[in-house]
C-alpha cells in the first residue's frame, strides 16, 4: 500500500505544479488583457472622468439590499433635523 501512496503523492505533486501553473498563467493573462483593454478603451472610447476624482466606491459584497432604504431614512432624518433646528 505504501507504494501506492507514493504514487498518489507523486500524482498530487504533479497536479499541484500543473494547477498552480494554470492558475498563475490564467490570472497573469488576465492582468495583461485588463491592461490592454484599459488602453484600448482609453484610446477608442474614452470616458469623461467624474468631476471629483475619487477612489472606487467600496464593494458591497453581501446584504446591501437595504442600502436604499437606509439612504432614504438618512435623507429624511437630515431634513427633519435641519427643520427642527431652524
Amino acid at each position: 500500500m505504501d507504494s501506492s501512496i507514493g504514487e498518489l503523492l507523486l500524482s498530487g505533486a504533479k497536479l499541484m505544479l500543473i494547477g498552480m501553473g494554470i492558475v498563475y498563467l490564467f490570472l497573469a493573462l488576465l492582468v495583461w488583457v485588463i491592461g490592454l483593454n484599459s488602453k484600448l478603451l482609453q484610446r477608442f472610447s474614452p470616458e469623461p472622468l467624474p468631476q471629483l476624482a475619487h477612489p472606487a466606491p467600496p464593494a458591497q459584497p453581501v446584504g446591501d439590499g437595504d442600502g436604499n432604504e437606509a439612504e432614504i431614512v438618512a435623507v429624511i432624518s437630515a431634513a427633519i433635523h435641519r427643520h427642527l433646528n431652524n
Partner: protein
Amino acid sequence: MENFINLWLSTGLSNVLWGQLVMMAVGFLLIYLAVRKGFEPLLLLPIGFGAVLSNIPVAGIAEEGGLLAYLYFGIKSGVFPLLIFMGVGAMTDFGPMLANPKTLLLGAAAQFGIFGTLLGALALNLVPGLQFTFKDAAAIAIIGGADGPTAIYVASRLAPDLLGAIAVAAYSYMALVPLIQPPIMRALTTPEERLIEMAQLRHVGKQEKIVFPLVLLILTAALLPSAAPLIGMFCMGNLMRECGVVERLSKTSQNELMNIVTIFLGLSVGSKLSAHAFLRPETLGILVLGAIAFSFGTASGVVMAKIMNKFSDNKVNPLIGAAGVSAVPMSARVANKVGQESNPHNFLLMHAMGPNVAGVIGSAVAAGVLLALVK
C-alpha cells in the same frame, strides 16, 4: 396498552442512535456559532438546522420522500451553488482589481492553499485509519479556496459523501479568518512592510467594468471550459450589475433569489451531516487540513506580495496579499485592520479588495483544474 407501546416506539427517544445524537449536537453547535458568535450565520444557521432535522430519528426528513431529500436535488444538480455564484457576481465590484490588476497575482498565489492541501490530504493516507481517494483529496483541497459555493459545487461533483464536512469546514474557517490570518501575516512581514502606503487607486470607467466579465468569460471558455459553469454564472451576475440596463434582475439575484437559494442550500448541505458520513476519522483530517489550507493560502499571498515588491517600484503592502484567499470581504477587512495597527491612517481596505475578488476568480480557476484533471 398496545397503543402506548406503539406510541413509545414512535418517539425519538426510543429510536435514537448515538450517532444521531452526536450529529444533532453538532447541528446545535453550528446554530450556536451562527447566532452567538456570528460565524457566517447566513449559511451556518440553515446548515445547523439541516443537520438537526436530518438526524431526528424516525422522521426521515433527509430520506427519500423527505423535504431535505428534495431540496438536496438542487445541490446534486449544481443549480443551487451556481445560482449563488451568479448572485455573488452581482454583488462584486471589480473596480479595485481593475484599477490595479497586478493584485490578480496575489489572488493566484493564495490558491497554493488549495493545491498544498491536496498534497496534505493525500499524505494523510499514511495515517492508519484514514483513507482519501484522489477525488476526496481534491474535494477537500477546495476548502483552501475559501469560497463557499465553489467548495460546495466541487465537492458535490467529486465527493458528495464528504460534502457536509467540507462545507462546514469551509464556512467555519471563513468565519475564523480574523483569528487565523493575523498571526501569520505578522510573522511573515516586517514592521516597515506593514507601514507601506499604497497609491490611490485610479478611477475605473463603466466600460471597463462592463467589458471585464465578458473577457473573463471568453478566456474561460477558450482555456478552461470545466470552470465555465462557475465563472459563466459569476460573469452573468457581474454583467447584470455593471451594465445598468437590467437593474431589476441584478437586484433580485443579489437579494430575494440569493436568500431563497441560501436557505435551501444550507438546509441541503446540513442534510449531508449524517452520522455515517461525518463521524469518521476522515472528518478530523478534513478539519485539520482546512486550517492548514487557510494558513497556507494566507502565507502564499503575503509572500507573493513580498516577491512582487522585489521586482517593482510600485510597492504593495504585503498585508493585502492575505486577502487573496477570498473569504470576501472578511479577509480584506482583516488586512485593513492589521495595517491600521501599525498606522491608523493607512487605509488598505480598497487595495485589499483587489486580491480579494481576484481570489474568487483564482479559486474558480483552480476548481476548473480539479474538475478537468481529477477523474
